[in-house]
Each structure stands twice: as C-alpha cells, then as structure tokens.
C-alpha cells in the first residue's frame, strides 16, 4: 500500500513514542488534529498500525523475572498449506511470543516466555515436540537483553553530555 509523506511521518512518530496526544502529532506534521486522527484511524483499520505495546524490562520487577527461550524448529511442510498449518498450531499457545518462518538450517523460529526454565522445558517436550510434522527442536535460553526492537535497554548514548548553553 502506497502511503503519503504525512502518513509515513505519523508512523515514524508513533513508532518512536505512541504515548503522545493527537494534538502533539498534528503540530509536528503541520496538519489539523482531525486530519491526523482520521489518518491514524485509517492506518489502524488497514492493520498497518497493528498495536501499541510498551517495552517493559521485567527483569527489574521482583517476582516478574521471565525466562525467554528461542527455539529452532524443523518441520515437514504439508501439501497445500505449506508451513501455515503447523505455524498456527504453535502460535496459538499463549507462551509463544513470536514466531517466524526462516530460511536456512531450520524452518520456524519460536520465542517462548515462561516463569522458569522448567516451565519452558515442559512446553517444549509436552506441547511443541508432540505436534505432528515437528521433526526436531533446539532450545536456546536467553541470558541477557541488550537491545530489543531497536531500543538499547541501558544505552550510554541517552545521556546528554552537552553544555547547558552553547553558541
């Protein structure tokens, strides 16, 4: 879908920080508030804006520390539906937070979140591996998050080292 410059600008603004008023966005793109609200609605309806999540560092919250694993899954594609049917079976599990079809040594990349390593181990052995057409799984546990979706978790570049007034 071809978007106008204004629409692209609105997307860039929302992607950086969607917690700002329509008015603030309108002022940045030199459009009226009504027009901006209308364009955002349109982008939402087109599912170009899919949702507005917050990036939360759960590792800082007592009792909420998560275990995340990325699992490489090899599957046998099925005639007629390819990988879609098995993918659907996997992504319906709520503990699966992302799922991608990959080129290369394996087929599906599955990200799973759980409270403990044991929980994830149970998911892999009881649920994932038992799905028809899943040939093998390789589970990698995530040790530390440095950067996520373009955001550096604790970046040094965020500090303002400039003098207060400069020519």
């Amino acid at each position, binding site marked *: 879908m071809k978007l106008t410059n204004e629409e692209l600008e609105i997307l860039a603004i929302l992607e950086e920080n969607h917690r700002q008023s329509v008015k603030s966005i309108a002022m940045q793109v030199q459009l009226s508030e009504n027009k901006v609200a209308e364009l955002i609605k349109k982008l939402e309806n087109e599912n170009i804006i899919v949702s507005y999540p917050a990036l939360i560092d759960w590792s800082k919250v007592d009792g909420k520390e998560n275990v995340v694993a990325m699992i490489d899954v090899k599957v046998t594609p099925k005639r007629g539906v390819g990988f879609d049917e098995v993918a659907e079976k996997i992504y319906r599990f709520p503990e699966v937070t992302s799922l991608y079809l990959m080129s290369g040594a394996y087929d599906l990349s599955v990200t799973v979140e759980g409270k403990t390593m044991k929980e994830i181990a149970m998911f892999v052995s009881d649920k994932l591996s038992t799905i028809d057409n899943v040939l093998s799984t390789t589970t990698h546990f995530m040790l530390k998050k440095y950067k996520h979706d373009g955001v550096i978790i604790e970046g040094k570049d965020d500090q303002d080292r400039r003098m207060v*007034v400069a*020519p």
Partner: protein
Amino acid sequence: MINYNQLLATQAVKLQPSGIRKFFDVASKMENVISLGVGEPDFVTPWAIRDMAIASIEDGFTSYTANPGLLELREEIANYMEWRYHLSYQPENQIIVTIGASQALDTAFRALLNPGEEVLIIEPAFVSYQALVTMAGGKPIPVSTWAKNNFKVTAEQIEKAITAKTKAILLCSPNNPTGTFLNKQDLSAIAEVVKKHNLIVVSDEIYAELTYDEEYNSIATLPGMYERTIVINGFSKAFAMTGWRLGYVCAPQPIIEVMLKIHQYTTMCAPHMLQHGAIEALRNGAEQVEEMRKSYRRRRNYIVEALNQIGLNCHLPGGAFYVFPSIQNTGLTSEQFAEQLLMKERVAVVPGNAFGESGEGYIRCSYATSLQQLQEAIRRIEKFLQSLGANTKLYERQVSL
C-alpha cells in the same frame, strides 16, 4: 602589581566576550534546567563513524597528515560537494580540512583582509563573526535584518552598506540564530550586487544539510559566483560531530593556495584519526543524516506552532535547529526575559541581542532536544508568560499542550 592590559594586545583586550558565555555561567550551576540554549545536535555521532575513529587509533594513525588533510578525505569531500550541491572542486588544490568551520572562517578572513577592509555581516549572526573579522584586522559592518522580512537580507540593504573598503560579505544560510534560509531567488539578487562591486562571498554552509522545505542552493552555483565564493562547511551539524572539531573549506585554487599557507603555519593539519571518522561519515552517513533531518523538522513544526499558540510570535524557519521568537509584547528586553525565565521557570534560552543589535526583542530557542523536553519547556514558558501577563493581555487564550 602588573597591569596586564599594558602587556596584552589592545585589540584582543577590547574583544567583547560572547554574550552566550555570560549566560552559560549562571545556567550551568542550576539544577533541573531545561535547556533550549544548546547550539548543537542532541544526537550522539552515529556509531559507525565513532567506530572508524577508534579503529584508526588502534591501527596507529597517529601521525600528521598532509597540511590540507588526508587526500582520501578531500576526495570524499569533493564527491560529496558534487553529489549534494553540484559544486566541483579538485581534491588536490581546492579543499582544506580544518579544525571546525570556525578555523576555516578565521583562515578565510586572514587570507582576504588588509587592515581596515570591511566585511558585511548579516545580523542577527553567529557570535564569532564580528570577532573573527576584527582579529584578522578587518572591520565588521553589521547589516540588520528584521522579522517582518523573515530575517532575509535584501540586495538593496547590501548595496547601501557597501563602501570603497568593502571586501567581502559573509553569508550564513540556514542561519544561526534565526534559522532563516535563503533560496535561489534571494541568493541571485545578492549575487548580482556582489559581482557588480567585485566582492568575495564567504558562505558559511554549516547548516546546509538541515534545510526542511526547499532544496539547498549554494551561492557558489550561481552564474559567475563560483570564482568569488569561499564555501565553508563541516561535520558538526550534519553528522552530529561538534566535539570532533572538523570542518573544511572549498574555494578557487588561488584562494586555497593562500589559505593553505596560513593553515599550515597555524594548525599544521586536522587530527589524523578523526579524519578517518569523517571519511566514514561522508561514505555511509547519508541515511542517518536524513533520519536526523526528519526528526528536526518535526520538532521545528511543533515548537513554532506551540510558541505562536502561547503568544510568542515566531516565523517558520527554513533550516538549522533554531527558532527566533519575538518577546517584544512582554515589554522585557531579551536579557531580562532570558534571565527571568531561567530564574523563575528554569528554562535556558539565549537572548537575541547576543547575536547583534537587531536581535534585541527576540530569543533564540534551540529545538535540538527531545520532544518531551520541548513540551515541558513550552509548559514552563507559558507559565512564565502568564506570570507576566497582567499588563500584556496576551494570555487570555489559554492553551494546554
């Protein structure tokens, strides 16, 4: 007791300290200040550029370079000038890499001016211009511009200011502090006067990458102007490399030849390892420059609209990252306004008179700071205006942002 004034050069003692410095001393000691006073990008230099400089130190590039800079860098500058501004310069003898655009300006005036010769400076202007001309033995002649004309200088104004001693005119577009952008039409009118009176243009194009509505035109591209224009640019603003102190100058070969003599005696060369970072900037930095430009543009739109809404009249500047709103309807001078705003609401701006007499009645706000900070600054300025508001009647229209 030694009277140092007797021992120091009279002209140096008489130089006025930058109006910005006075303010800096106060503001830098305060807590919780939101600064709209910073004349530099809020981005850190893109990582690939930093990485290249680090690697060049690791690889031992710690010697001098050729006086005009690494040939490899001058070739990249030549390519960039051609690609970006349609200007063609020979890397071998038409380009010098300098310690920031500042040194390029200094060297240009030393090369151009005999004692007492005059340079027209379009005001409000960057704080260094007058002093640079004076230090080179010349005489700065301010030409004032006004908000009613979006701070654009006209050919008639320039014509009027020219005397038998006028040697050059210093242009800066987009301008610090007004953000004013001179388009092709504006420049053509100026160029005609320059040619008629056989002048040189020193064109400070440090903000050229940061233009938002119209395509950038260097005055050197206009007919008959290439041979009488000294183009000065640098890495500070476009690539967020202010602290690197790297600039460059491009000019006709006979001018560069003289400038290079001055450069080699004063400076030798720009730092070797940093020049490698600059090569990376020119080779692979365009995309990030574009991202930064888009980000500044949004913030410009926001702050201009916001300032006008809270009652500070402000034109939409075509470039740089400054807005220059009028504070005349508050009845305060620029310095009073800036000082009281800092003391009461802890927002730092620069009083317009720091940039020349015609800046009186204005303040310079830099929007090279995050949108969140800008929004908070606007809230505070609005509150400040309301505290003054009793006798101005301006603030009846309350705007919440």
